[in-house]
């Protein structure tokens, strides 16, 4: 993954971020938990980083499973 091709999914809770990572892993979407970028959110927990090309599919998968998330942003 190169930096210019990454997105981060932001969550309201680390519980949701971790659930999301598990859901995406089961769907075969490569993603990893990273510290929430401070300039994007004041959250002290996790965000999910993944390829930009996978972001739309990931968002669909999370919505379909009912995993709450805030928004998708470009990775710093």
């Amino acid at each position, binding site marked *: 993954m190169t930096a210019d091709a990454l997105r981060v999914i932001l969550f309201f809770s680390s519980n949701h971020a971790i659930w999301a990572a598990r859901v995406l892993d089961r769907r075969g979407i490569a993603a990893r938990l990273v510290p929430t970028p401070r300039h994007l959110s004041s959250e002290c927990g996790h965000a999910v980083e993944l390829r930009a090309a996978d972001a739309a599919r990931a968002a669909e998968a999370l919505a379909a499973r009912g995993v*709450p998330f805030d928004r998708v942003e470009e990775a710093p």
Partner: protein
Amino acid sequence: MIYFDHAATSFPKPPEVVEAARRFLESGGASPGRGSYPGAIDSGMLLCEIRERLAARFGLRDPMRVIFGLNATDALNLAIAGTLDPGDHAITTALEHNSVIRPLKELERRRGVSVTVLPVRPGEALDPADVAAAIAPRTRALVVNHGSNSFGTVLPLRELGALCRARGLTFIVDAAQTAGVVPVSIDEDGVDLLAFSGHKALMGPMGTGALLLADSFDSARLQPLRVGGTGSQSERLLAPDFLPDRFECGTPNMPGLAGLHAALGLDTSGLADHKRRLVRRFMDRALASVPGIAFYVPSDRLQTGAVSFNLAGRTPSAVARALSERADIACRPGLQCSPLSHRSAGTFPQGTVRFSFGWRNTDAEIETAVAALAEVARGGPTP
């Protein structure tokens, strides 16, 4: 020791449970959701996987609706005190453990909540018509004991759940004695709030329990009893509105939950049959050879592995003491924190002797207990 007190807590714990708790303390150890280093992520993953396992087991789609707590009592306090406002009315049964009736009575005293206790005997079903007749304009909840800790009987849930859905009542179920041994489906049984311990038939460590919120239950109808740090929305001075953070604060009992995680991975499919077979064997053998023994419910109605009895002319505490001293048998005499059910069964105030069997108990232990009981029954006066 012959341990016949599994209704209090299962013992010994399976070695996988002990090992998982030990392993967490030695090589895991991080607080979940409070950092992004590998240990914290591992703890978060573990917590999430337990939620997923419990959700799957109890018919819940959303694992974030699994709210961890200390035990079933803790979960019931949240369910009861979190849903009833001043002036509300709740319906419950005469089979309840003090973990239900005491929270209700405290609310009656402190918040002006009114409580109707419907009569029902151990081993009988609660007639939905009786519940319907008790519904008043401010009735908010029906709270029922799924499995009697004193008598080992089970209350059918499905019709009650359907009634609650139809009449807009919150259906709160105490599954402390049934989780892990009698199937419960939040969805199919129409349960709104399901409370249970992790340390009884689920065979996890003490200090673990959960309240499960049905997928269809509006979580805004439940108010938290405790608030504090959640690792989320830390800039806000009020607790988050989303689940599970709204109802979970502070550091969870991760060693205990690691043990519960291991317990949930065990094949316990034979546990219920094993417990029921031991109950039947004990009752058959005791009725044949222990003079003056009295049971209160037929064996075919006992489903959790618990069975209550008395010996003519002996108090329960004297029998339990004699069994401990003569045969090193651990059992539970008295009211077992369930005075209402003993009133219903006609065994109040002295209560009963309760044996409750578990995964490691054997036929040989039943024989030892029956022989010891026969000796106590035929012997001289006991203390």
